[in-house]
């Protein structure tokens, strides 16, 4: 079992070795593809800079994602409660998604300046759609017979929502949150590309301009680490918040024995 958990780490390590060897063997120029050791070196050398530039990016992702999670879930719930809301909001929602959000980034920068607000909004805009949709889908996925049973017990809409529809929808909502989280990272980086004086996205563009490939790859590496960590943070929250996940794990363990 422990060995199973180590397999991904071993794989990554082997890929890095292969990478390092190929770069040396085929004499690939550093500008095209820096070796892992060089990237690592760049990380160590500019440690202070990377730490201070990671923080604003993290903050943007956090605000953008939180706002997206809140608005997406609230909107998804209200749409599922009222067919009027569904009919009026849904077409608007879909067409808003057809506007390329990356292209709106400069506009938002004009409106809200180059501060945190514009970046949060861009991360929010990119992240919130999948959260809304999966909330709606999850709430609609309830077995109509279950609803009938709750009705027969005398449950009102609120009780049915709290005891049946929300718990049923939670796995779907969390699927949306995971997608939203990875999109929030994209949003923050895009926002920093457009206008910023700090942040990993900003540094990535800057290093690129300086032809500092190890710096570019170091930023990419950090962004990946941030993305993966946040993704797993959502997954851990899911593990503890979604009813039924815990005992299913227990069952899986039983079977693997």
């Amino acid at each position, binding site marked *: 079992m422990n060995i199973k958990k180590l397999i991904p780490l071993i794989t990554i390590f082997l890929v890095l070795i292969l990478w390092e060897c190929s770069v040396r063997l085929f004499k690939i120029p550093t500008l095209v593809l820096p070796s892992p050791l060089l990237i690592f070196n760049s990380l160590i050398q500019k440690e202070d800079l990377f730490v201070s530039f990671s923080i604003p990016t993290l903050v943007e992702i956090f605000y953008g994602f939180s706002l997206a999670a809140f608005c997406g879930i609230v909107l998804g719930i209200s749409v599922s409660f009222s067919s009027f809301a569904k009919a009026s909001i849904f077409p608007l929602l879909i067409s808003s998604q057809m506007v390329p959000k990356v292209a709106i980034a400069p506009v938002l920068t004009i409106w809200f300046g180059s501060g945190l607000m514009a970046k949060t909004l861009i991360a929010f805009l990119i992240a919130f759609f999948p959260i809304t949709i999966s909330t709606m889908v999850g709430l609609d996925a309830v*077995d109509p*017979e*279950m609803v*009938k*049973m*709750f*009705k*027969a*017990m*005398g*449950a009102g809409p609120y*009780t049915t929502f709290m*005891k*049946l529809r929300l*718990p049923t929808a939670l796995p779907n909502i969390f699927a949306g949150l995971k997608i939203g989280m990875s999109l929030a990272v994209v949003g923050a980086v895009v926002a920093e590309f457009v206008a910023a004086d700090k942040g990993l996205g900003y540094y990535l563009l800057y290093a690129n301009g300086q032809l500092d490939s190890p710096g570019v790859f170091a930023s990419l590496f950090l962004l990946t680490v941030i993305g993966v960590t946040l993704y797993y943070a959502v997954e851990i929250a899911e593990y503890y918040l*979604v*009813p*039924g996940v815990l*005992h*299913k794990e227990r*069952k899986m363990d039983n079977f693997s024995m």
Partner: protein
Amino acid sequence: MSFKNELSESSLNSNFEALVELKGVSKVFDSRRKGADTVIALRETTQNIRRGEIITIVGPSGCGKSTMLSLIAGLETPTSGEVFVNSKLIIGPYTNSGIVFQKDLLLHWRNVLDNILLQAEVRNLDPEKFKLRALDLLNLVGLKGFENFYPHELSGGMRQRVSICRALLHDPELLLMDEPFAALDAITRDQLALDFDKFVQSGDRTVVFITHNMDEAVFLGDRVMVMTPRPGQIAEVIDINLPRPRNLSIKDTIEFIKYTAQVRNIFMKHGVLKNS
């Protein structure tokens, strides 16, 4: 012997008090298909269900038996006529009843005990107060010690037993069962039918039990309501004068065979069953 006595006792039912009264009740659904006519699910029906009896409703699919159950539970409003339970007109869901469906409808994220206590929670009753009763019911249906199991850890028969416990938690006077054993294998179904009297505390509780199985209808019912489709209506109501509690050997008696033949003949007469 005592067989005869019980026979005469249960045939005294002509002046029993009615718990459920259907008065000229019909249900018509609008067809979803364009141009097609409306569908008559249940033709005007007047029928009483007596307090404390177990009435089984048997018929093929589309004969309106589930519709009748929904009308009694107040989950559907009749197109014409009125439904009374305890002499009260049913306008919304009638909640002093317990319902068991074909699917067990257990919430997979709750364990057995919490699934049963859902009945109390939804009714805003203190679940703590019902915990003992829930455990008693589990004991009654033969699932003692299973309270912390999750639905996916149980067999189909066990899950349906849990769902019966949930329906009985608040001790409803009326138990409505919509083909509760239909999704189970034949042996499990026989076992549940054998335990049936114990589960529902027959005699005290009024039970409406829907099935498409003629054997099951005769075996479980004090009366069998035979229904035919197109449009759904009651063809006949048969008194079953067999002693309770019933065991499987009753299926070998002449009386039992005669009753099932009687049901079958009604279906033959109405063209539900045809010799080829």
